[in-house]
C-alpha cells in the first residue's frame, strides 16, 4: 500500500519535472525564433508550475508529515536579567588595574554631557533638513497667476489665432495664450454659446463678446482637465470625479465634489476680429489651497 503511494508519487513528480524541462527548452526556442508574448507566458507558467507541483507532491507524499511539536518557551527575561542589562548598558561597572570590580560614575549619569550631546545631534539633524528646501522652488505667487495677460491673443492647440468667425454656436475648443501653447495652468475652454454677447453673471457683461465664453479648463476640485462638454444642456463635466458646471451660469458647480465655479477669462475682439483676453483670470485657477483667497 505504502509502496504503491510512493511509486505513484514518484511517477507524478517525474512527469512534472519532465514538463518543466520540455517547457523550458521550448521557451528558449521561442525566444530564439523571435519571441511571442502569449506563448512565452504559457511556457514559463508550465515550466514553473511543473516545478511547483513536483515540490508540493514531494512535500505531501514523500517527506515526513508529522505533526511535529516544538515547545514555546517563555519569551520574557527575568527581572534580574533586565536589571543586569540596564546596568551594563549604563556602564556603571569597571575593572581596576588589578582586574577587580570597581564602580565608576556611568557616562549616562553625566547630565551635562547628555544634554550637550542631545543639543549637538539635534542641531545637526535640523541643519541636515535644509537641503530638502532645494527640492523645489517656493510657491510664491505662481499658484495665483497664469500666462494670460491683458491683450494676450487667444490661440488654438496648433498655435493659430482664433477669429470670431471660427466657431459655430455650440462649438468648443481648447485655447492657450499666444506663445504658451500647452501651458498647463493656462489651458482654457472656449465655447460659443450664442452669436451675440452673453452675460454669465452680473458684472461680466463685457466678458463674452459675440457669444464666446472662456473658462479655465483646470477643474477646481482636483485639477483634471474638464474635458467633456454636453452641448444640449450646456454643461461641462470633469471625467475624473464627475464635477459638473453650468456654462451659461458662470460655470457654477451643480454636481460632484467641486465647490467652486471654473474661473472665467474675460475676452475681447480686436480690430481684425481675433479674440484676445482682457486680463489674466481674476482669481487663482485649479484646485484649492489654504490661502487661495488671500
Amino acid at each position, binding site marked *: 500500500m505504502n509502496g504503491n503511494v510512493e511509486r505513484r508519487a514518484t511517477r507524478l513528480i517525474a512527469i512534472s519535472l519532465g514538463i518543466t524541462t520540455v517547457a523550458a527548452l521550448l521557451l528558449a526556442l521561442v*525566444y530564439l525564433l*523571435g519571441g511571442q*508574448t*502569449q*506563448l*512565452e*507566458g*504559457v511556457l*514559463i*507558467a*508550465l*515550466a*514553473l*508550475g511543473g*516545478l*511547483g507541483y513536483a*515540490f*508540493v507532491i514531494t*512535500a505531501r507524499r514523500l*517527506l*515526513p508529515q*508529522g*505533526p*511535529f*511539536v*516544538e*515547545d*514555546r518557551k517563555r*519569551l520574557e527575561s527575568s527581572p534580574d536579567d533586565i536589571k543586569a542589562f540596564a546596568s551594563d548598558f549604563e556602564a556603571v561597572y569597571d575593572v581596576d588595574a588589578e582586574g577587580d570590580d570597581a564602580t565608576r560614575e556611568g557616562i549616562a549619569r553625566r547630565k551635562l554631557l547628555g544634554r550637550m550631546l542631545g543639543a549637538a545631534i539635534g542641531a545637526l539633524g535640523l541643519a541636515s533638513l535644509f537641503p530638502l528646501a532645494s527640492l*523645489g*522652488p*517656493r*510657491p510664491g505667487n505662481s*499658484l495665483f497667476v497664469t500666462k494670460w495677460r491683458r491683450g494676450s491673443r487667444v490661440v488654438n*492647440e496648433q498655435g493659430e489665432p482664433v477669429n470670431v468667425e471660427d466657431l459655430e454656436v455650440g462649438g468648443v475648443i481648447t485655447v492657450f495664450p499666444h506663445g504658451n501653447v*500647452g501651458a*498647463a*495652468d493656462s*489651458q482654457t475652454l472656449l465655447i460659443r454659446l450664442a452669436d451675440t454677447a452673453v452675460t454669465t453673471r452680473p458684472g461680466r457683461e463685457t466678458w463674452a463678446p459675440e457669444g464666446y465664453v472662456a473658462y479655465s*479648463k483646470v477643474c477646481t*476640485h*482636483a*485639477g*483634471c*482637465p474638464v*474635458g467633456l462638454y454636453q452641448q444640449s444642456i450646456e454643461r461641462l463635466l470633469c*471625467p*475624473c470625479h*464627475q*464635477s459638473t458646471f453650468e456654462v451659461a451660469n458662470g460655470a457654477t*458647480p451643480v*454636481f*460632484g*465634489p467641486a*465647490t467652486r465655479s471654473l474661473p472665467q477669462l474675460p475676452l475681447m475682439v480686436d480690430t481684425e476680429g481675433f479674440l484676445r483676453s482682457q486680463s489674466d483670470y481674476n482669481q487663482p485657477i485649479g*484646485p*484649492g*489651497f*489654504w490661502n487661495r*483667497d488671500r
Partner: protein
Amino acid sequence: MLVERGVRGLDRRLGLARFARTALNKVFPDHWSFMIGEIAMYCLVILILTGVYLTFFFVPDSRHVIYHGSYGPLRGVRMSAAYESTLHVTFDVRAGLLMRQIHHWAALLFVGSILVHLLRIFFTGAFRKPRELNWMVGLTLFLLALGNGFTGYSLPDDLLSGTGLRIAYSVLLSIPLAGPWLAFLVFGGEFPSDDIIPRLFVIHILIVPALIVGLLTVHLVMLVRQKHTQFAGRGRREDNVVGSKLWPTFTAKTLGLFFFVFAVCAALGGLAQINPVWLYGPFDPSAVSAGSQPDWYIGWLEGALRLMPPWELRIGGFEIPNPFFPGVLLPGITFTVLYLWPWIEERLTKDHAHHHILDRPRDRPRRTALGVAVLAFYVVLFLAGGNDVIAARFDLSVNAVTYVFRALVFVLPVVAAVVAYRLCNELAARDHDDEEKLALLERTPEGGYVDADRDPGSDPGNDTKVVT
C-alpha cells in the same frame, strides 16, 4: 556521509551546526491561511527580478522626443523619453512586454495578498500581545507597498497615470498651511514639472524597495523570535507549536508555493493584457479620457474623492479644500486606527494576556462584526471609484449611481455588521451543540475511561479516542 563532511568544513570556520539544526527543526503550523503572507513575499521576489530587468531599458526622463519606434499609431508623436522607453521595451525588446506585464500583475497580487494577510491577522486576533510591534511593521510594509505601486504605475508617463499624478498633486496641495510648499517640494515646482518622473524612479527602484526589504527582514526575525501562532486543535496549546518542520517538508511546500505564484504571474503576464499604455497615449496636461481608473488598491481613495459632497471648510478667509477630507483625512484616520488597534482592543476587552492560540472569527463576534463593517465601507468606496464605468455599463445616470453609493457607504457597513454578528453567534451556537455531543475520552491503565476534556492539563496522547 557527504553532508556531514561538508558541514564539518563549514562548522570548523563558523561554528554554525548547532544553531542551524535548531533552524531546520523550526515548526510551521499547517494552515492554508498562513500561506497568504508567503504569497506576498514571493510576489516581492518576482517584482525584484522583473523590475531589475525593466530598469535596464527604462529612461526616467521627461524631456520630449519624437517617437520613431515600431508602434505605428504613435509614430511622429511628441512624447517624453520615459514614455518612449516604455513603448520601446513593450514593442522592440524581446519578452519586454511579458516582463512588464508580469511585473504589473505581480504588483497587483503583492498588494492584494498583503491586504488579505492583514485581514487574516485581524480576524483571528493574531495582532494581540505579544505581536503588536509586528502588526505595526506589517502595516508599514502595506503602506510602502501601496506607495511603490502608485509610483511604479506613474513612471510610464502615459495619459492615465499622469492624470493620477495630477490628482495626487492636488491632494498634496489641499493640506492646510504646508500644502503648496509640500507639493512644490515633492514635484519640484508647479504641476506638471519635469522633475517628477526621475524622482519617482529613484523612490520606486531604490528608496521604497530598500525599506521594504529591510522591514520584511524585521518582520520575519520577529516572527521567528516569537514563533507562529496557531489555531486551537488537538495537542495545540499556548506553550507549543504543532506542524511541519522547516526542513525538509515545509521547505518543499513553500518552494512549491513560490513556483506556483510565479507560474500564475507568468500566465497572467503572457495572456492577460494589463496597463496598455500605448492605447492611452503620452501624458498631455490638457487631455483626459472618461473611465480613468487607478490600479485597484488606490480605488478606495478614488471612490472617496468621487463620493465626497461639495463641501469645504472656510475659517477666517482661509480654506480647507474639499480633496483634503477624502484624500488626506480619510487615509490618515484609517491608518492611525489600524496602527493603534492592538492597544485599542486591549483597552476595550481588558485582556492583557499573551495569546498564541488564534481566535476563530465566530468566537469574537464584536471584533468580526466591526471588521466586516469597516471592510464593507472600503468596498463601497472602491466600487464608487468606478461609478462612471458602472453607469455606462448599465446605462444609468452617473449622478444616480453616485447618490446610491453615497447612501450605501453608510448603510451597507451597518447591515454587514448585523449580519456578521448574527452569523458568528449562530455558528458558535452550532459548535457548542456539536461539542456537547462529543466527549474526548482517555483510557486509564485499569481499563476504565475518563473524560479528558475536563482536565485542561492533560495531554491527549495516542490512545485517546473521539467518541460520538
